């Protein structure tokens, strides 16, 4: 069969093309399976809670802060995220990523753009708390790390 195919230029071309695809498979099989096994081991090494906030590691957003926010804000809460230079971060994207990441993580809680009267909670990530309280006092619920505060609008 193979000999018959190779006698004809079309058959030879077809055999060459399939051989190239086979060569790719042979060359890539071991590294390909290695990559997927490594990825499986890495993912399986994470605890369920770590998996749910895995992007926070890359963005260097405090995991404790996020965990506390999830625990303290009820599902129907409204909140705002305020950032500032009152916290030390290791990447330039951290502060700009806090609000969108919190929005994704904390749904169905509603995020508002500013800590106005409609917002019940404040997630302060290095923000100026005094500035934020101009519209009304807040009660601090969590301040587990320097510069990070979760507060509720005082009644």
């Amino acid at each position, binding site marked *: 069969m193979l000999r018959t*195919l190779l006698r004809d230029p079309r058959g030879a071309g077809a055999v060459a*093309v*399939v051989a190239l695809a086979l060569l790719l*498979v042979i060359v*890539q099989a071991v590294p390909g399976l290695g*990559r997927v096994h490594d990825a499986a081991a890495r993912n399986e090494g994470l605890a369920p809670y770590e*998996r749910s906030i*895995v992007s926070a590691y890359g963005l260097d957003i405090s995991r404790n802060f996020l965990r506390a926010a999830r625990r303290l804000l009820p599902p129907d809460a409204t909140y705002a995220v305020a950032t500032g230079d009152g916290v030390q971060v290791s990447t330039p994207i951290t502060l700009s990523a806090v609000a969108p990441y919190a929005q994704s993580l904390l*749904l169905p809680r509603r995020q508002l753009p500013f800590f106005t009267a409609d917002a019940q909670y404040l997630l302060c990530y290095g923000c100026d708390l005094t500035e934020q309280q101009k519209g009304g006092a807040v009660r601090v619920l969590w301040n587990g790390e320097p510069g990070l505060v979760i507060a509720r609008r005082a009644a």
Partner: protein
Amino acid sequence: MNAWSIAGLAALNALFCVVGAALLWAVRGWRAWTELLRLGAVAYLLGVVCTTLPLVWLLTVGVGPSVPLVIALAVVAAGAALFAGRRRPRPAWRLRERRTEPFVLVGVACAALAVVWLEAFFRVARASGLEAFDAWSFWVPKAQAIYYFGGLDERLFRELAGQTYPILVPTLEATDFHFMGSADTNALHVQFWLLLVGFVFAVAGLLRPRVPLVVVWPFLAALVLMPELGARAIAPQADLTLDYFFVSAALCAALFLREREPWLLVSYGILLAAAMSTKREGQLLAACLVGAAVAVSWRDRRFAWPRLVGVAALAFVATLPWRFWFTSRDLRGETPGASLSTLLDSAGRILPSLRLVVELALDSGAWLALLPIAITAAALCLVFGRRGASALFLLVVAFGLLGLTWILWSIAALPIVPSDATPIPRAVGALTLLGAAFGPLLVWELVEDRR
């Protein structure tokens, strides 16, 4: 891993299989139960579309997905399909013809490797966290909003990136959440693993029994081994889902032009509608496919053009409810918004953009070399006078490269760099996957009349 979440996903995806199998029964019938096995993955992809697309339409009129609604939709769709196909003969237990194939063990070995890889990839999917930027920043939040608020939350959609992006994937994800019983964003990755499995076996099912195992599976085994596929396939976003629908639609179009089977035309239309409802690039890719199919069917234009273009127009109509929803709310960002003068001003971007698109599409480190291999096969077909699928494939690739170049050219804010700052490194996946799916067909066309 949450076992209940996985069980919910399995139930929903089994429902997709039932809907798709009933639809295929209506449009082509089953000669044997073994055909159901071979085309089961095609049925699955069609079932995903035929269940999720009506949910998108319902969302635009304020009805959110729920478990009872999805089951009712599936029962209605499957029931209607079974009723339409009631005159079809009952399938036999097996096909009568028996064929011998050359080097079948090589094909089986490659298929086994692909299955082993997919099994290992399932372990990655079931324990994945939400890592991809686009996934956590807007694709999944849109799905969560649909799940939590029971519909399209205009305020949230306005705040998120990609306001006007089609919502087939968020709708599918929201439906997943309903079947899982919670917004389990970790288990959600398994849905995208299932779509990948469905795509691989759908391509195999469409190519068989025309193309021998030894030709089909080396390409598909190489496809699953693509590093970029492994890096992106289970991210809960629309990029690769679009590619699956688009490539399957292209394969159905190529086979329809060869064999004129009506069920291939129906499948092409449904998958094209899915591609256009998955991402904005889907409309661009659909235009490339329809344009290429029209060009290569010049000789059969009386037969082919009304069907190809008519079905594509119907597929476009399926995207209109979403379009009406977002335009009525003045959501923006559907097109680059570049005027002729701004395009002329940035004409200097054309060549660097084209160079980058070609480099990324042919990047063998990311996508292996399946696209160049398929292009070689197509070129050989043309040299030896076989102008069927090869001409279609080459034209779709050429139009696709130009279309992606146009994206980079027309959006001046996009840097011409090979990073994820642009959609291009992901978008070229459509062309590389096209190479993997068309490669076996092209090889077979090359030697077809030698049998």
